[in-house]
Every structure is written in C-alpha cells, then in structure tokens.
C-alpha cells in the first residue's frame, strides 16, 4: 500500500462520514419537488458510474449507455404491465436483457476501437430509439404508463422520500463495487488495456474478454439505473432515452472526470442539478454544457476529479521527491517470478511474413536452445522486430511454424503465448502510461484469467487476498529491480533509462520461460548497459531463455552465447559470436566493410570491464 501522511489517512474517512450523514439526513431537509430531483440525480449517478467504467476505466467509447438504460426501463415496464409480473421478478428479467444488450454492443469492440466504436455504438443507440418509437409493444411515442410501485416489506415506495433510501442503498452498493473493481486486478487490467491494448495482450491480459466485460459491467449499471428510473417515474417513453440525453450523460462523465469513478458521480450530480435549475432555459443550458465539455477536454482533461491535482493540491506525483535508480539485487522475488517450468527453447521453422507484397521475413530458420542467450542482429529493416512480433504472437506468420518449449505455438496469439511463458519488451517502450510503476508490475504479476472475474461476485474475499499477496510480491520485486523509489510515479514522468528498467521488471514479473528483448539497450548510457547485461545474465541463470534483438554490437558479442544475423528478412549467419563476426556473408551484408566489425572485439572487453565483478559473481 502507498504510504500516506497521517493527516490524509484521517481526513479521508472523516470526509466519507460527513458525506454519509448528509446523504442520510437529506430527505428531512427538502420539499417534495427537490426530493424528486434528487431521486432522478441518483439514477443518473448510477448510469454515469457505468459509463465511467467503460469509457474512463477501460477506454471503450460507449455511446449506447442510454440504450442499456432504456432497455432496463422498457423491459421492466413491458414485463410488469403486459405480462403482469411482479416488480422484482420483472427487474431480474430486465437486468438480464440489459446484460444481453451489453454483450451484443460489446461484440463490435472486439474488432474496432475508438471512433469506429463510437459510431457503431451511437448507431445501435439510434436503433434502440427507432425500435421504441415504432413498436406496438413499447406503445410507440405514447410510452408505457401504470408501472406498479415496487413492493418492499410493507414500505410504501410510492413516497419519493422512501424511494430515495432504496436508491441510496443501490447507489452506495454500486459505487462501492465500482471502486472495488477499480482498485483491484480487474480494474488494473482494464486501465492497462486502455493505455496500451497491444502491450496488455502481449503480457497476458485477454483483451477481448476485458472489452466484453467492460461493456457488460457498463450495461449492468445501465440496467439497474433503468429499473430504478421505471420504479420512480412509473412511466417510460422514448423522450427519456434520446441521443441528447446520451450526450448529456457523456458530458457528466467528461466534466466530472472520466478516469475517476467519484468524478463521474460528481459530474452527474452537478449537471443533473444544473439542468433542473436551468430547466426554463433548456437551450442555453445545452449551449452551456457543450461549451463546458469543449473547455474541459482542452484545459482540464481529468475533469472536476482532477482539479485538486492540477491546482497543485494533494500528493505531488513528480519532480522533487523522486528517488534514485538503485542497482539490481536479485533476490527471492526475482527467483519466485521466474517460472518453475524452467527455460523453454524456441524453434523457428521457415517463417515468412509478407505485408501487402512487402516481404519482411523469408524462410527464417532459427533455433534457440533452452537456457541460452541468443542475439539477433542485422541492419535496420532486416526484419528483427518483425521476427519478435511473430514469435510473441502479435503477427500471424504468412508461412512456416514455430514452437516454444516443444509446443507448436504458431496459432496461439499473444495472450496464450504469454501464459505459455513468453514475455517481451518493446523497442519503443510500451509501458502503461497512466498506471503507476507499481501497477505496471502488479499487472504483470497477476496471472489470473480475466474470464474468472466472476470471483468478484461470488467470493470477493478471494480477490482481496490475491491483491494482498500480489502487492507484497510487487514491493519485493520493485526493490530487487532497484525501482522502489518510483513505485507511485507514472512511467512517463521518469527518465528513459528508468523506464527501460521498469519494462524489464514488468516482463520478468509475468513469470517467463523465454524472454524476448527488443533493443533493450537503446538510449541507455554505458553504466546502464552494464547493469542491463548483469540483469539479463542473472535472469538467464535463474532459468529463462533470452532472445536479444540489439544494435549495440558490443553488448551482443559479450552477452550472447549464440548470434543470428538477419539481412533482408533471411538468416544469413548463425553461430557463436566469434564465428559470426568472421563470416564473410555477414561482413558483406552488414557493412560492406569488415573493419568496423573487427573493432567489436575490444568492445567486448570494455563491456565486461564495465559490468565489473558483478557479472562474474552472478555466473559463479
């Protein structure tokens, strides 16, 4: 857990107590119309939490939240009035209907993202509007009235004062569950996916399951809000579920702060009250909130929730208190992280990869023995990164096969490969930018399946226990990698060398049997390169095969047991560093001039010297 000053640890609960008392006492202080406004506000707050979970937490543009809301309300109305079911039985049906709609709207998200997803979800929301205004089941523009009052142990919920307490209970439960998700593994995965879906997938998160889950969670909140709304107003019509209302809801989440659940609630409260207050000037109110949305995205993208931080209040997240990058000190956490299954070999058999006619790889054969450090070098554009992308599952090869640890892996895909023990780093650093360093590592340490998130409903205690265990492991690993000082900082605020170290720690945290490093020394200074060499050797000695794509020939020659040379997408040489350097084909392809390659031999010594005694110690 992060260390907080004492004043904060007292201030937080005190604030919650005050808010709690105000919420409980609220009905005693307001008249019949204001309580109606408050009731509607709570409905929007629940709805906004759901949108916040999809949009802010998981980064899924969801403009169909209004349809989930509408389906919840309409199905309840139809089942209670037409079929004559009781309110709560109908509520179960309508919640199920919302979830089905959520899954259906989530399916396009498996294929498209961003603005494509925006237009598809908006289109589906319009499809819903089209259905309710035309269908006889929904009684068209007239809407459905006479929805029964929800019965509850003799409490008369037709009183909007008492209904408030029902809503309050649901709202608090919804808020608590949302915050629980945000602060544990599912929320962390969703945020990671939002920041970088490719890296999240390559490190073992099933992005497709997560996207569907995001829409499902969002639709549950939408459905619940719809049920509450139908029980409150007891009348539904298409006017309540228009695209304008969707945009109002979006404005709530953006103005409140989409990446903060509390911010979403805040936005919902502020805009609901503002809308009510300006009800006689609806057009000007619309003009106003449109303007505020524009101003918010340009000047305050974190919304109301982010204002304290932007104004310099609260915890400082960068600058002065930054610590130092410490040496790598391998310990129990590093040992525990490395998979028990031992190092895996990699056999690449005739892999080819073509991009629209451009041949990036051709008949690549490569053998990496278990427990070896294998270098892959070659001129720019020779296909090194493409090869890494193929064997980490990001690209499907056009031809050929490859096997990891004796298992054919060609069709596995990045997530399954990660579970199989393949970990990688990226040439351009793909750290999750809005997650802290600790969360980056926690994300990788967490090997549970996203599909097993039902645990959140069935046995939340298990989630909490896992979280405690993971956090303890993460602290140790961060310390061993010498980056504990930066645990609470966002990676982008850190110098490049430290970010490289964080990425390496994250890759090791996944528990790999084979580690693929894409230019890990790029941008590092001499001392950092020596540290890198030591880390790579240690990890290999603990039982991990390493594939190293690198331009720093000194590092490759001193570190690798074997080196393969790629040129124009084919392997032109493969053997020990000494053999490869002497190979005329390599000299020809690489430089057309052998003099520079020969210079690498003294360089090798320099690296060993720079790495110093550490390297020898580790080997021994």
């Amino acid at each position: 857990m992060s260390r907080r000053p004492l004043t904060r640890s007292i201030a937080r609960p005190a604030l919650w107590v005050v808010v709690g008392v105000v919420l409980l006492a609220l009905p005693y202080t307001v008249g019949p119309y204001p309580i109606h406004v408050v009731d509607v506000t709570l409905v929007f707050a629940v709805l906004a939490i759901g949108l916040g979970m999809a949009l802010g937490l998981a980064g899924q543009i969801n403009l169909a939240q209004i349809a989930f809301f509408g389906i919840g309300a309409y199905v309840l109305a139809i089942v209670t009035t037409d079929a004559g079911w009781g309110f709560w039985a109908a509520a179960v049906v309508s919640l199920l209907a919302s979830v089905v709609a959520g899954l259906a709207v989530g399916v396009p998200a498996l294929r498209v993202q961003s603005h494509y997803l925006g237009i598809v979800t908006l289109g589906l929301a319009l499809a819903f509007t089209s259905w309710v205004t035309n269908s006889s089941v929904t009684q068209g523009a007239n809407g459905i009235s006479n929805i029964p009052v929800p019965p509850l142990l003799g409490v008369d919920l037709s009183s909007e004062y008492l209904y408030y307490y029902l809503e309050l209970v649901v709202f608090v439960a919804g808020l608590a569950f949302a915050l629980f998700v945000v602060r544990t593994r599912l929320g962390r995965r969703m945020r990671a996916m939002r920041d970088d879906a490719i890296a999240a997938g390559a490190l073992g998160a099933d992005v497709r399951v997560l996207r569907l889950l995001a829409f499902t969670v969002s639709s549950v909140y939408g459905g619940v809000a719809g049920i509450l709304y139908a029980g409150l107003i007891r009348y539904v019509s298409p006017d309540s579920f228009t695209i304008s209302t969707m945009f109002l809801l979006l404005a709530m989440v953006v103005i409140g702060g989409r990446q903060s659940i509390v911010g979403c609630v805040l936005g919902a409260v502020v805009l609901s009250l503002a809308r009510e207050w300006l009800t006689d000037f609806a057009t000007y109110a619309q003009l106003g909130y449109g303007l505020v949305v524009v101003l918010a995205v340009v000047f305050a993208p974190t919304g109301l929730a982010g204002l304290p931080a932007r104004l310099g209040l609260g915890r400082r997240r960068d600058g002065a208190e930054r610590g130092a990058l410490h040496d790598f000190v391998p310990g129990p956490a590093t040992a525990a992280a490395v998979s028990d299954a031992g190092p895996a070999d990699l056999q690449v058999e005739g892999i080819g990869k073509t991009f629209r006619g451009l041949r990036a790889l051709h008949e690549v054969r490569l053998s990496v023995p278990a427990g070896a450090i294998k270098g892959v070098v070659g001129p720019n554009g020779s296909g090194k990164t493409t090869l890494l992308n193929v064997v980490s599952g990001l690209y499907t090869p056009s031809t050929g096969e490859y096997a990891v640890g004796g298992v054919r892996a060609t069709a596995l895909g990045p997530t399954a490969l990660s579970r199989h023990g393949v970990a990688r780093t990226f040439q351009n650093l793909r750290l999750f930018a809005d997650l802290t360093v600790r969360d980056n590592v926690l994300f990788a340490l967490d090997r549970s399946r996203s599909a097993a998130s039902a645990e959140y409903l069935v046995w939340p205690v298990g989630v909490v226990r896992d979280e405690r265990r993971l956090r303890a492991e993460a602290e140790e690993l961060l310390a061993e990698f010498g980056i504990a000082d930066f645990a609470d900082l966002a990676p982008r605020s850190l110098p490049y060398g430290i970010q490289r170290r964080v990425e390496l720690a994250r890759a090791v945290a996944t528990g790999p049997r084979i580690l693929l490093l894409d230019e890990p020394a790029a941008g590092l200074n001499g001392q950092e390169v020596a540290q890198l060499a030591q880390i790579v050797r240690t990890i290999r000695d603990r039982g991990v095969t390493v594939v190293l794509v690198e331009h720093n020939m000194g590092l490759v020659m001193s570190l690798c047991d074997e080196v393969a040379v790629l040129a124009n997408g084919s392997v032109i040489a493969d053997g020990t560093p000494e053999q490869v350097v002497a190979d005329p084909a390599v000299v020809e392809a690489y430089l057309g001039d052998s003099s520079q390659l020969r210079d690498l031999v003294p360089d090798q010594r320099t690296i060993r010297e720079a790495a110093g005694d550490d390297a020898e110690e580790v080997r021994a």
Partner: protein
Amino acid sequence: MQVTLQTLVGGLTLGAIYALVALGFSLVYRTMGLVNFAHGQVAMIGAFTMSTFYMTAKLPFVLAIGIAVVVTAVLGLVIERVLRPLEGKDFDLMLIGTIGFGVMLEALAVVVWGATGRAVPSPLHTAPLSVAGLKIQTYSLLVLVVALVTTAMLVGFLHRTRVGAAMQAVAMDPEAATSVGIHVGRSNAIAFAIGAGLAALAGGLAGPMLYVNATLGSTIGIKGFAAAILGGFGNITGAIVGGLGIGVLDAFAAGRFGGYSDLVVFLLFAVLIMVRPTGIFGERTVNRA
C-alpha cells in the same frame, strides 16, 4: 421492378448528400487524424445559413449556398483552432471535444433559428423528367451532378495543386512533411475549412429535400459518418461509394421496414463493420501494432 428502380433513384439522391458529408469527414481525417463528430451539425448550420439567405434575403440559391460554405468554413477554422492542442495526442478526448461542439452548435441553431425548423422550396421549377416510366426530379439530378463534380474537383485539387499535394504529404507523414518545409498547421486548417465547406454544401443541397431543423445535423451526420467508414475511412472514392451505398440502403430499408429503417440500417452497419473493419476501399488496419 418499377418501384425498385424508383426507390433506387431516391436512395442515390439521398446518398449523394451522405457522400458529400462523408467526403468532408474523410478529408479532415486523412489530413489530421481528427474524427469530427460535429461534422453533421456543421452541415446543419450550413443548411440554416443557406435557408436564411435564400428565403429571407431572397438571394439566388447558388449564392446562398456559396455564403453558407464560407460561413461554415470559418466555423471549421474555429473548431480546429480550439482543439489544436489535442491534435496527435489524445484521440478519444478530441473525439469527445467535437461531440461537445456538436451539442453547442445544435443549441446555437435553436437560439438563432428557433426550434420549429423550415421547409426550403426547390430552386428548380421544371417538371420531373420521365425516363422509362421513372419519375426523376430535376433537383435530384442536380444534387447528383454537384456531388460528382465536387468529388472530381477535390481529387483534382489534391493531386494537381501545390496546396493539395502538400495536404497529401501531411496525410502520409506529418513529420516528413514538416522537414521538407510544409506548414502542417496551415495544411490542417485548410483541410478543416474545406471539410466544413463540403458539409455546408451537403446541408445546403439537403435543404430542399429534407426539412431543415436543428436535428438535421445528427441525422445526416451519423449517416455520412457511417458512409465514410463503410467506404474506408479517409478514402475519397470510398466516401462516394459508401455514401451512395448508405443512401440506397436507407431508401430500401425505409420502403421495406417503414419506421424501423434506422434500426435495420444501423444493425446492418454494425455487422458490416465487424466483417470488414477497414471498409470497402480501406487498407489501413484499425489496430496498428
């Protein structure tokens, strides 16, 4: 058969409007990577502006549309300027920002022109042409011809002029374009102004066909956007084919399913986008590795 062909003609006319909207979307997207969700509202402002100058000021139709194009081009420049800090940074925020602009423009239209809207008379008074038993409104022909000529002019502009070539370069690689001395900011602004102008042309031409009111923007905006995606986002030819395709789909869905046409069109669109996310002519993959 007769009915089918008649529906086809109606769909193509409406499709020409969607195509012009899609053209503006695509031009802005390919140049600066911005998806302007307020594009439809810009078209709606264009339609209202045209109606004011055409109906109230009694100016000729062509002149009224010309004024509308200029007005919305300026509007486009304003939107681009305000959102410029986000360009190339946070795609989703920019998208939400344009939604904010759309909301504002819709409210603004109600403030300026009122909530009721207006019917714009057709500028052509000739009788419908009869071709093989089909009745074709002369105005429909006009719209189709204008859409095709505009596309040809846009393609010519992009390929044959220095400014157009510069915009193409920015579309391909902004950094490389900068290094050879192209002013990326100016290029983006021009693209946005032309895109907004195209929206006004679409809105203005739609005036006599559709009822002009504040929600016209969201109607033709979302269909135009769908057309752009269907054709292949950022592809000029794709915008035309996608626009005509959505128009025809729309017309047949309206004939076959009545009020449910939106439901059918958008469900079909969702399915198409899942089968082929890059659209008909799109080549760029959606998720870049």
